[in-house]
């Protein structure tokens, strides 16, 4: 019986104590008509060895292609110590630190995490995580609607250049509360939020403006101007940032005259493997003024009876287990283990390590773009400066190109044609510090082969090529 320690003698002794004839008698309050039979569609149990064989086969099946996709999940080096420490049983198998005295390890670590995130973003306070970057944005939107007392509307300005999945998630989560997300177009030349269109909204009532840095195209937004514009128009400024980029880019707390009010983003680049999209974690930081509107767990430093420093869950009056229907959010469990890994990751890298990673990603992507742009019909779509991703135009249908590349075991980027048909045959590429010169050359030579194959079948060419 996997994971059940009872011997037959234990069972009999325990039943005798209870005064029940057999285990089935313990279910006598369940109406017999409701009882289910065998779960026939569930296979019989397997040994660890057999499950190991199955899982190894499945993991191998997906190969390990050379990956140039970013689009919200980035392949960074994770120091060996990170997951060896994070999977120590004391971290891995504990729960939310409700009993503070028995959870000082997790609590102090979370306080250190909050300290690191406020340092990276230059904001006053941080919570201890949300599910992922997209759901963190949704919570930031809800927070802004609650917090902006100057705004009567439940409307938010959200750029089209923001990650399409983030926009979808925010919509799924906030729409039932009557909140409207108004899309801001981007400038087709620079790839930045279109400031002329933005100006048309001046004076209108919105609770917040969302400002991604960088945006989904990798392009850097004019964050100072956008933040000031939001504040001038009585909106809160919600920053959506990549934490690795924050090591080198101007932090949201310093945007414009007053800084952003809320900053959120995807924590995955801080020590979480790609792993099919999760678990990752969303981070959320804000100004002191907004702390009581913040969702999720927050840890405070305090003293014990003897005056010794200790850490505890605080401001719990915001949370569902105390406030129930009046809580700031329904969130209970967060992404504790991922935050444990991120805290260790940031400690190991430090500011300089993160800066080196960020700069290496920027350099590698620049190199990739340069090398690929030497191929006929390939080139950057936007002029704006980028961090570690760029949109490239291809001389053939993006879907076909990526499929052919994948057949050569190269994942050539994210196909933008479904979400942004206005960009034509466009692909979003990324080369992190993990993709060296040889990998870039590999991509180039495979793409060249794919393009040449098309040249030999001209009937399939697009007219503009």
């Amino acid at each position, binding site marked *: 019986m996997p994971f*059940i320690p009872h011997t037959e003698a234990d069972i009999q002794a325990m039943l005798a104590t209870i005064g029940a004839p057999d285990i089935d008698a313990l279910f006598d309050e369940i109406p017999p008509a409701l009882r289910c039979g065998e779960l026939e569609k569930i296979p019989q149990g397997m040994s660890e060895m057999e499950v190991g064989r199955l899982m190894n086969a499945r993991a191998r099946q997906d190969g390990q292609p050379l990956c140039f996709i970013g689009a919200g999940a980035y392949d960074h080096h994770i120091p060996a110590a990170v997951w060896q420490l994070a999977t120590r049983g*004391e971290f891995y*198998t504990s729960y939310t630190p409700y*009993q503070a005295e*028995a959870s000082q390890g997790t609590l102090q670590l979370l306080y250190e995490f909050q300290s690191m995130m406020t340092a990276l973003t230059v904001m006053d306070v941080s919570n201890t995580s949300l599910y992922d970057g997209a759901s963190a944005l949704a919570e930031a939107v809800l927070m802004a609607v609650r917090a902006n007392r100057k705004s009567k509307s439940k409307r938010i300005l959200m750029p089209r250049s923001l990650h399409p999945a983030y926009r979808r998630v925010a919509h799924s989560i906030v729409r039932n509360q009557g909140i409207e997300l108004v899309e801001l177009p981007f400038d087709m030349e620079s790839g930045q939020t279109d400031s002329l269109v933005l100006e048309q909204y001046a004076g209108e009532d919105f609770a917040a403006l969302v400002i991604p840095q960088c945006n989904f195209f990798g392009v850097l937004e004019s964050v100072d101007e956008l933040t000031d514009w939001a504040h001038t128009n009585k909106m809160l400024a919600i920053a959506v940032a990549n934490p690795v980029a924050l090591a080198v880019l101007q932090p949201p707390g310093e945007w414009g005259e007053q800084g952003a009010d809320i900053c959120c983003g995807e924590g995955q680049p801080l020590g979480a493997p790609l792993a099919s999209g999760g678990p990752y974690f969303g981070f959320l930081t804000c100004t002191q003024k907004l702390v009581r509107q913040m969702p999720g767990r927050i840890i405070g430093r305090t003293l014990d009876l003897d005056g010794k*420093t200790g850490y505890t869950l605080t401001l719990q009056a915001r949370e569902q287990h105390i406030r129930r229907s009046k809580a700031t959010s*329904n969130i209970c469990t967060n992404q504790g283990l991922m935050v444990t890994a991120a805290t260790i990751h940031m400690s190991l890298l430090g500011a300089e390590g993160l800066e080196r990673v960020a700069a290496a990603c920027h350099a590698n992507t620049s190199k990739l773009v340069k090398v690929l742009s030497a191929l006929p019909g390939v080139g950057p779509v936007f002029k704006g400066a980028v961090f570690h991703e760029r949109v490239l135009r291809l001389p053939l249908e993006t879907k076909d190109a990526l499929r052919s590349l994948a057949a050569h075991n190269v994942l050539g980027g994210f196909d933008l044609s479904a979400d942004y048909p206005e960009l034509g045959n466009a692909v979003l590429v990324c080369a992190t510090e993990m993709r060296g010169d040889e990998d870039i050359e590999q991509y180039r030579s495979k793409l060249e082969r794919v393009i040449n194959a098309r040249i030999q079948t001209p009937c399939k060419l697009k007219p503009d090529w």
Partner: protein
Amino acid sequence: MLIFEKSSTGRRATAQAPLQQADMEGIPAQFLRRQSASMPEVSEMQVVRHYTQLSQKNFSIDTHFYPLGSCTMKYNPRASNSLASLPGFLARHPLAPETHSQGFMGCMYDLQEMLKEATGMFAVSLSPAAGAQGEFAGVAMIRAYHDARGDDARNEILAPDAAHGTNPASAVMCGYKVREIPTGADGDIDVEALKGVLGSQTAGIMLTNPSTVGVFERRIKEIAGLVHEAGGLLYYDGANLNAILGKVRPGDMGFDVIHMNLHKTFSTPHGGGGPGAGPVGVSERLEPYLPVPMVAQDGEDYVWLTEDNRPESIGRLSAFAGNAGVLLRAYIYARLLGRDGMHRVAEFSTLNANYLLKRLTDVGFDAAFPQRRASHEFILTLKRQARELGVNTMDFAKRLLDFGVHAPTTYFPLLVPECLLIEPTETEAQDELDRFVDVMTTILQEAQNDPEKVKSAPHDLPVRRLDDVRAARDLDLAWRSRAKGER
């Protein structure tokens, strides 16, 4: 001491980052950070030692008995972690094409199918990232269902007064008002009160069964009939699924929508407060509204179902496919257990709970619902001890820590005064349960002979009781802001 306080200017773990510092060519200065972030500057060994020592200040399943009611703190198999961490699974990009995803997608499809069978639901989506997000998804589907029928005047969700706080909070996030239903003296819902509030405004009811008071809701079929008759739907909170796995299924009880907490029932683990996974299952009429993405089988291949082919879906709840790594762990656990293993989860968690309840009442504790059979958990009330000895539930909980036992859930559910909600789980042996009884007996004797000792506990932990009022009043939430006084 904080990691920041171990920092020395210029020290680094040099092996962890690229050896060269590249420049940020092409990025105008206005976009760049002017001052490096204030992060710790420490060596690799300092980091390893610091976090190893911090870990040792935690109670965990691996180190301590952890009978935290409603949280199902059972053994987390090591195989689930090591197999979910195989290089092929860790390296897969969430947007990798289906051609390079069949292995992973096969696991997800199988898991969907197994969860359908285990819960008796018509279809399952794995995407919600935690129980509370599953609740949100479930209530959003209830709303989508009513809205699609033009039945959009229904504005009320019912929940028992003993419900988890997430239930009302999730309903509010979906735009509903919440009305509480009282619990009867026997622990079951007050069905007469329910009848009084059901009506054309009822969108649905959220129930946990076995309920949060640790007993099986015996009139569930009748309740389902009443709610359906009023045009409402039934939501099953899967917090206590461990108690009934393989014995009775939410689908057979008449529930229309459920969420499961895989970090509880499928032991994935809890990770110091997440990540969890909260898949949702639905009856046939709610199937169109399931959150995306989902995995389907198309001939020999697995394919993603997204917003494109599921237009009525309530949508996407995370950027990619939810907590995939947690789902893999659950799948591995389910394959290790298999059909018979699942029956045994309910059997032995229930055996352990009933044994512990009997032994604790024999040594002088009071059950909150003495006439009822325990499910996988049960409630003691220390009302009598608090009155007679001046030692309350929190004192007991803190004193347990001194004996190396994590405290049970305290003061929940709110309707039972001075309560301890105790869930031993199926993976504890009889000896461990007996030791817990011994410890509780000892604390009871201390409460009678030396109450101060209990009231001032814990004595042997890294810290004594913390000043929570000070924590909330003089907010100190980050080292940096305090040390440097920066904004």
